[in-house]
């Protein structure tokens, strides 16, 4: 289950390898968050592989094994369609978002496929309104390591904030 403990790793990694992978993912997440927090949504798909999958999942649905997602992109086409919609066609008040991503943890490594997790919190600020907590949750990730470069094969965002405040515009 998506919210259960981390999957066993295929081949155990050395401390050093783990540390390197972990810091590489931390860098990846820092850039991922900065791209979104700048509102540069059309760059967002570039963090995924061609067949990359993105899902935003309410924790109660995950716990009940219900398959519905709040956002769901299967592959680059749907990732780009969502990015385009947010950038050009959806109507919403301008907003600032800020990510805090912590506790990045590599949970598996096999044949260049890395499984990892992290916690995220997103703050949202609307004009002349106080900053509020938009959502907090967990990333459950699968990365593809291509040389030095990491790409997301799959990012599942399991959010605790089941009662969504108004709506989620930018993907967490």
């Amino acid at each position, binding site marked *: 289950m998506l919210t259960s403990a981390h999957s066993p790793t295929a081949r155990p990694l050395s401390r050093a390898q783990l540390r390197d992978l972990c810091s590489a993912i931390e860098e990846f997440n820092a850039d991922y968050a900065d791209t979104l927090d700048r509102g540069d949504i059309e760059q967002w798909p570039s963090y995924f592989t061609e067949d990359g999958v993105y899902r935003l999942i309410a924790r109660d649905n995950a716990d009940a094994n219900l398959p519905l997602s709040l956002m769901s992109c299967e592959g680059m086409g749907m990732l780009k369609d969502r990015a385009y919609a947010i950038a050009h066609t959806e109507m919403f008040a301008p907003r600032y978002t800020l990510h805090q991503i912590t506790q990045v943890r590599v949970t598996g490594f096999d044949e260049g496929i890395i499984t990892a997790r992290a916690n995220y919190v997103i703050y949202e600020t609307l004009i002349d309104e106080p900053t509020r907590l938009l959502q907090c949750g967990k990333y459950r990730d699968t990365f593809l390591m291509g040389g030095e470069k990491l790409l997301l094969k799959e990012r599942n965002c399991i959010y605790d904030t089941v009662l969504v405040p108004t*709506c989620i515009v930018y993907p967490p």
Partner: protein
Amino acid sequence: MTNTSRFASSPAVNRAEEVSDLHWPDDPAAIPDWIYTDPRIYELEQRRIFQGRTWNYVALEAELPKPGDYIRSYIGATPIIVARDEHGKIHAFENRCAHRGAEFCKTYRGNTKLFICPYHQWTYDLSGALASVPFRRGVKGVGGMPADFKLEEHNLRGLNVTCRHGVVFASFRDDIESFEDYLGPDMLDQFDTVFDGRPLKLLGVHRNTMPGNWKLYQENLKDPYHATLLHTYLTTFGLFVAGNKTMILTDSKGRHSTLCNARPQGRPENDQSKKEIRSFHAAMKLADPRVLQLIPEKDSPWTSNAITIWPNLILLRQTNILGARQIVPMGANQFMLIWTTFGYADDDAAMEQHRLRQNNIFGPGGFIGIDDNEAIKFVQDGVTHSIPRHGVAPLGQDVEGPEVVITDRAIRSLYRHYREEMGL
């Protein structure tokens, strides 16, 4: 229902009745700000509408398939429980202990034989009847309940329950027409196009708070004008376009409505009406069109049916998405939406996946959901902070036929009914 003597109305509600300073404008197209902002109106709505002679959506049967299954739900702002007893019968009752008033059930859903209030362990069965109280006879022969204490006088407040084609509705009133008469023939027909009697399969539930008055959401789904203007995904891809074949129905009382739209094959040609639509993006193409692909599954002439059932339900069939949206008011300027998404039990894996994929359109992160949620916030911001006056819903005429699309007819008919029910 039992121990009705315990169900006196609240002072808040009594005081809410003092609304003599509120005057509805004469212009039949006018809607006064105070129905969205005044806390007295909110209190009055709880009693006159949600606790009045209305059928309120509370659950899908698919959410509680087995005996002992239950879910938390709401009627108006009141937390309730919907449960299926050992005989398969569905009951609904208030989520408030008959002893000292604890909201005892704090889980979304579950399966149980008994509900035990944690404070003093009063124990209720699946019908909401009080089954036992601890130390009823005290200890060592002293204390405990009075000799004349009767369990059956302390049941949870039960609700009047009805089901149709897998959908559960409840009412605080026993003296109410059947659900079928409540809907009327046309709405019932629409209801049955979504719920055709086939068993349903629950796909998931989303919840969000909306920073606006709950009625703005009813209006939104009775407002074809915005549908064809605000939503690029509807206009550009022809899901709902003024030029399409359209039908707008209301029931005889004007409280329920349906917007039907027939999506043309392929992309709508760049017809006359497009010029007026700023949200129309002629150039826009989808890299992955599956999200909008229509898989024929009904012999309905319509590809979308947006059904509003007064007071708390929006039913939406759009392309292959099926969803129920439950409105839970949380004060004059906020409400909760519970989006229950489902398919049919006999969907194959591909169809289920298709519905899940298509659901990107709706919900608090959906291409269309975001537009509407934001628009409703904008309206509440406006009526809350500007100098109070009234808005206008002047489009179309009340006598026009169902095919007229640029009309506020359904909004005006709703408020005629609303004023009667509210005595405004």
